[in-house]
């Protein structure tokens, strides 16, 4: 037994590991239900006052040096493409940016607040029903979630009203609404806020997409489109389209984050205590290993502490949730050779490509923007189109986003431009504001060989093994991505005066260049304990007073940004705890 010298703290009802999007919502819901909740966060405390003008608009500090992302000197992960390679540590941030500190990655997110579609929750059964079992690769492990869109819809709705999502509904109660997403699952009512304005690039994209018979619509945004008082009674300010959103805090309090939607109330709640700089290293179990007794953690001064609790909630980023289960020995570890075991299974990501569009005769003002300012089409997502004969499953969003073109990251030049020197400089001056991207944000199926486990060699500053990621794209993803890229090229070709260059997904997955912070899986939900870590209520099959909440629960990834679905799952789980578990503590399934 570790940590016999740890100081044992007075017990509480609930301990939450990771105070980000899921952790703050669960803390709020459960303190409102009268429970005493302690929130442990490995990083620093952060509040809206930390994001003041003008120092916030600093591309280098926030978007290049990633001030709000994980400190890899303390903990990183190791990575390899295939199980027969030696994993090496991710020494620098690149492909994705896990958050650290209060608010987590939901502090520096863009605010794209999508719902997944009905197909996404029943990926395997609906695909097999329509195309037969051969639609999936033989080593494909994508599966149904154990919960359906219809069951989650009220919880999406709740999340949208706490996070102030603005958008144009496309389907309310089965009735189509023009201007919205014609493919979306039926929603119970409109978005709480109107959609964002349309940027020039978005308008060019929309005109071209319409000309081809598609239905462009504004992406759902958690950047406020007007002053909004959320269902907890907190008021958020309207977004000013400043373009410093992704990787930044918001000086306006206009981006829905834990800091703007929940924390001001939570900090005052009698039942809640926040302990930042608290690194949780284990979930503690009783002797039979069927009940969590609390967690062990190290505080900022290096003191080893134990926080006993009746309920343990893991609400960290994907990697930390999976790693804590592995370090604590909860659930059977996944074995890629036998395909048995569950913890670490079905790690997935997203599949990105894009088309750069050069418009010689237009200046786009593309430094104006917002994290969730985008015009998109959903025609080639999920199963919104007939896949017969295409050789792949799934799809993705195609659209034009104006995140704000901070210059270091936006030095777009046409192919063939010298890589540096005077010609490069001229091309940068010419095209910085005469180009934009049509992005293809594709989903990613799960496979037997893509998984998370513990690294045998590398350790964190506390001496614990790092998480090891084994991941590569598969044929399904390359085909799907190419298909989307071809569609984006066809749209670009309809933009007057435009010249397009595709940036296709080629070669193996690499961890160096930024792609997306949409990592998923490793502690997936499902109806069968042989293929899932948690049941449909996100409750551990093995330790019923442990819930694991986040994108770690996704059995595979959809072609949408994940945070909206994380929010919906969080409320779904909160109600399961409040309405069912507290009355009858034990397995809910």
């Amino acid at each position: 037994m570790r940590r016999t010298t740890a100081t044992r703290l007075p017990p509480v009802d609930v301990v939450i590991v990771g105070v980000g999007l899921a952790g703050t919502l669960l803390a709020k819901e459960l303190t409102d239900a009268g429970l005493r909740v302690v929130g442990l966060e490995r990083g620093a405390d952060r509040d809206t006052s930390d994001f003041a003008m003008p120092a916030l608009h600093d591309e280098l500090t926030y978007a290049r040096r990633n001030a709000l992302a994980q400190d890899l000197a303390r903990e990183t992960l190791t990575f390899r493409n295939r199980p027969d390679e030696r994993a090496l540590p991710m020494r620098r941030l690149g492909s994705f940016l896990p958050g650290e500190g209060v608010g987590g990655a939901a502090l520096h997110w863009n605010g794209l607040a999508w719902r997944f579609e009905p197909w996404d929750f029943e990926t395997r059964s609906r695909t097999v029903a329509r195309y037969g079992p051969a639609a999936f690769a033989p080593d494909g492990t994508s599966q149904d979630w154990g919960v359906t869109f219809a069951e989650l819809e009220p919880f999406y709705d709740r999340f949208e009203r706490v996070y102030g999502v603005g958008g144009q509904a496309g389907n309310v109660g089965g009735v189509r609404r023009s201007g919205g997403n014609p493919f979306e699952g039926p929603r119970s009512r409109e978005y709480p806020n109107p959609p964002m304005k349309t940027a020039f690039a978005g308008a060019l994209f929309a005109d071209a997409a319409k000309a081809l018979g598609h239905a462009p619509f504004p992406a759902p945004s958690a950047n406020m489109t007007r002053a909004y008082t959320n269902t907890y009674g907190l008021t958020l300010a309207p977004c000013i389209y400043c373009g410093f959103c992704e990787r930044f805090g918001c000086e306006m309090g206009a981006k829905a984050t834990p800091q703007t939607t929940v924390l001001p109330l939570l900090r005052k709640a009698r039942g809640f205590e926040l302990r930042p700089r608290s690194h949780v290293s284990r979930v503690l179990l009783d002797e039979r290993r069927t009940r969590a007794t609390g967690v062990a953690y190290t505080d900022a001064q290096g003191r080893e502490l134990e926080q006993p609790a009746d309920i343990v909630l893991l609400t960290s980023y994907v990697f930390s949730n999976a790693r804590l289960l592995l370090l604590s020995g909860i659930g059977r570890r996944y074995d890629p050779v036998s395909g048995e075991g569950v913890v670490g299974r079905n790690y997935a990501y997203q599949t990105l490509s894009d088309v750069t569009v050069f418009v010689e005769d237009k200046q786009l003002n593309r430094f104006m923007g917002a994290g969730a300012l985008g015009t998109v089409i959903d025609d080639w997502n999920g199963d919104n189109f007939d896949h017969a004969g295409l050789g792949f499953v799934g799809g993705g969003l195609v659209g034009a986003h104006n995140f704000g073109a901070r210059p270091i990251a936006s030095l777009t030049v046409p192919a063939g431009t010298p890589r540096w020197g005077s010609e490069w400089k001229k091309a940068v001056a010419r095209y910085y504001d005469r180009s934009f991207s049509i992005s293809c944000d594709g989903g990613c199926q799960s496979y037997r060989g893509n998984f998370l486990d513990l690294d045998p060699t590398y350790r964190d500053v506390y001496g614990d093994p790092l998480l090891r990621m084994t991941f590569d794209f598969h044929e399904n993803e390359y085909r799907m991505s190419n298909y989307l890229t071809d569609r984006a090229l066809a749209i670009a070709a309809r933009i007057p005066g435009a010249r397009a260059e595709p940036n296709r997904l080629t070669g193996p997955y690499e961890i160096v260049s930024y792609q997306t912070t949409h990592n998923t899986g490793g502690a997936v939900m499902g109806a069968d304990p042989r293929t899932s870590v948690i049941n449909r209520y996100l409750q551990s099959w093995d330790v019923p007073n442990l819930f694991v909440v986040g994108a770690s629960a996704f059995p595979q990834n959809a072609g949408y940004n994940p945070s909206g679905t994380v929010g919906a799952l969080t409320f779904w789980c909160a109600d399961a705890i409040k309405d069912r578990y507290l009355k009858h503590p034990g397995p809910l399934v």
Partner: protein
Amino acid sequence: MKQDRRVFLKTLGAASMAGAAPAGVAAASPPTAVAPSTDAPERPTAEPAETYVYLSPAEVAFLDAALARLIPADELGPGAKEAGVAVFIDRQLAGAFGTMAREYRQGPWSEGTPQQGYQSRLTPQEVYRTAIAEIDRRCEAAHGERFAGLPAAKQDDVLRSLEDGSFALDSGPARLFFALLWQNTKEGFFADPIHGGNRGKVGWKLVGFPGVAAAYTDHVERHGVPYRVEPVSIADLQQGRARTDAHGHPLHHPARGRAE
């Protein structure tokens, strides 16, 4: 090659993007008596004595020469050397970036695949120090001059051979050094001047980036109306050279030196 500042401003103006004046700017923020023009208090590009925290004089000479080739001064305006990018690199190397303070530094070390990314034992501090010393030594041995003393065409050859790895360095991968140098050059040219580069906001003026953002709510849907303003830096706001709205965002003013 130093450019007269007024000549530079004129050439920048002539070369800047064509298009209508950002009418929305003027409408939203009439040209009030903005305290001294945002350009006036900036250091002239010919400031004599730079100070360096990490870099040696020989390293500065190398970098200034390389920077002048990577982003040269030309008819579009000053280049990376004039923009103070060597100072930027010095500050970066002296700080967390240079020592990889927030990056994973535990062994064992292995080269790995390209997909696995940075696996060097050397920090950026060490990469710059060892690579520059070796390149200078080799240039001196081959051509009788350190890198900074070579003709521009020769310097370009050296840089290209570092970039493609054919200039084999004993002290570490040449491509790693070049990649760091080029990354830091772009960062130093386009980052906020508070970090030591982009002096005179020349990088932002080159591309038409406004710097610290204003409230764009009323402009974002003015499609086809280029928003071209004098860029505002963090220091402009911290030192009171730019007026702000109630939320601390600058009130932008139309770019000067424009024909239209």
